[in-house]
């Protein structure tokens, strides 16, 4: 009995491994990306324990110091500890990145599903809204939403999420239309399976992997936009430990204290490279639409 259970559990585990882990692990650069991202996630999770200072504590007597025993990565012009701000900044960047993509995904997929499944006038109206959103570059869209919503971390998540709705909606609708014409949907319908069950059990599983691949690639764009907007002064408000804000602050001191913008700048660049590596790996491993790079 227990032997049989073990067996089925191991079969399940091995099928998960075969379907998800193995194709991804075959992409060596994706693994590198994944490891780096995990390190960032750990740093973000344990920021309160790893940090040596309060990330927003100012100490003007210790301003503009280079790396030392007291301040491992130096201090900025307010005397804030860069190492501690770096850790909390990782937290913020990851939260904003993942939250905005998740929110944009949920809303976009809902719109795409509704448009693809209902069809008719509803579809037309929904897709024209999506066309309107897609007609603008994401950054401009996010800037406009920030202007309407006002500054702050929460509004930044909403603004970014809104600018991601369009791509997810269009993609989901396209996939739904493709799946809808498949014979197995027709069969399920004829068998009297309720519509919601058809959507949940037969349509969604077939559109989910390209959507997740897309989401994976969006996270790096979200983090780039997040720090970019904060850099421009229309994102997170100071003194929140945000990499974009930190780079903007260090910009004026680049000749006398290059580490102020260098610490968050390099951290951001490495994280974005890692996210791109993972995103490319996910795409190559799971998206049947794109052929592999030769």
């Amino acid at each position: 009995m227990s032997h049989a259970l073990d067996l089925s559990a191991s079969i399940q585990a091995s099928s998960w491994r075969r379907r998800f882990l193995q194709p991804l692990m075959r992409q060596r650069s994706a693994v590198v990306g994944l490891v780096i991202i995990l390190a960032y996630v750990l740093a973000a999770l344990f920021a309160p324990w790893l940090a040596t200072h309060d990330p927003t504590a100012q100490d003007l007597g210790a301003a503009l110091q280079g790396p030392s025993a007291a301040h491992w990565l130096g201090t900025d012009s307010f005397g804030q500890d860069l190492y501690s701000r770096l850790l909390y900044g990782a937290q913020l960047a990851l939260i904003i990145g993942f939250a905005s993509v998740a929110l944009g995904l949920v809303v976009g997929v809902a719109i795409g599903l509704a448009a693809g499944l209902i069809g008719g006038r509803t579809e037309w109206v929904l897709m024209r809204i999506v066309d309107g959103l897609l007609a603008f570059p994401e950054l401009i869209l996010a800037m406009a939403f920030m202007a309407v919503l006002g500054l702050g971390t929460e509004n930044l998540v909403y603004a970014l999420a809104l600018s991601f709705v369009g791509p997810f909606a269009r993609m989901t609708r396209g996939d739904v239309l493709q799946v809808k014409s498949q014979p197995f949907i027709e069969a399920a319908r004829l068998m009297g399976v309720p519509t919601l069950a058809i959507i949940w059990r037969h349509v969604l599983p077939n559109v989910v992997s390209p959507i997740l691949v897309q989401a994976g690639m969006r996270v790096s764009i979200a983090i780039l936009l997040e720090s970019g907007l904060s850099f421009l002064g229309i994102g997170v408000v100071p003194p929140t430990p945000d990499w974009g804000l930190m780079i903007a602050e260090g910009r004026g001191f680049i000749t006398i204290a290059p580490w102020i913008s260098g610490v968050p700048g390099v951290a951001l660049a490495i994280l974005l490279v890692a996210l791109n590596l993972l995103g490319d790996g996910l795409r190559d491993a799971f998206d049947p639409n794109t052929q592999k790079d030769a």
Partner: protein
Amino acid sequence: MWQATFTKLGQTLLVLLLVSVASFSFLKLAPGDPVTIMLGSDYSKASYDQLTQELGLDQPVIVQYGHWLANFVQGDWGTSYITNQNIFELAVFQALPVTLTLAAFSLLIALVIGIPTGVMAALYRNSWVDVLATTLAIGGNAFPSFYLGIILIWVFGVGLGWFPTLGFVAPWDDFWQGMWHLALPAITLGAWYVGLIARITRSSLLEVMGQPYILAAKARGEPGWRVVWVHGMRNVLMPLVTVIGLQLGGMLRGAVMTEVVFSLPGLGMMITSAVLNREYIVIQAGIMLTGVLFVVLNLMVDQTYQFLDPRLRRRK
């Protein structure tokens, strides 16, 4: 072919209309009552009603939209509260040329560096050039352009003093001064494209080089450079244009950041300072203009295919 062009044009007009609706709704969503903003803190009920009427705000929204669109098409975009400048002149004659010049110059740099790198990477697969191209592709694409700009200013502007760090000189006023001022911004923005272009060139060239007609060209005894640059590159152009088109959004994103870092008075700078000053009417003009620009550029990319691929021309 004509029918396809007309359908495409119709679609584009519809999208442009959607862009205008979105831009119009933006001002409606913006916080604050425009009448109160214009009157200041001290006003009477009568003057409030009068201005409301003058601005047409007492009319139905759809009528307001119609008025607004008519004004927009005629180039009457209003006046900035802060600088008292005509917004149409500010956006179209001052900001737009800066952004377009920056974008074009960056794309040129990216193509000039990216294509040869990609070709070398394809011809000498797995050599150091190939590794370099891949590294460039991943690094350049991910590196935040605003930080790259700061580094370039620090090293080449302040440190070595080779280039000016701020400001814009129009190349049509003084060509060499203009190029000199644009060099660092264009490299900053172009770096983002170089890797992408190299990568696409490499992979599509690799694909093409296995085709029979390449073998035939080689068998005819055509020189190696001709095989690669004439027969091979012809087929790389399509995917290249596709990628450039797909990444226009990224280009504009980079342009906004680059303009702010280098204090170039382009569209990105205009919209950024308008958001900071809460000048919603300028933001609206900026959104509308970028939206239109984006749609038109995408249409142009689409049309380029017909020139690049003769097979598409013959289809109905």
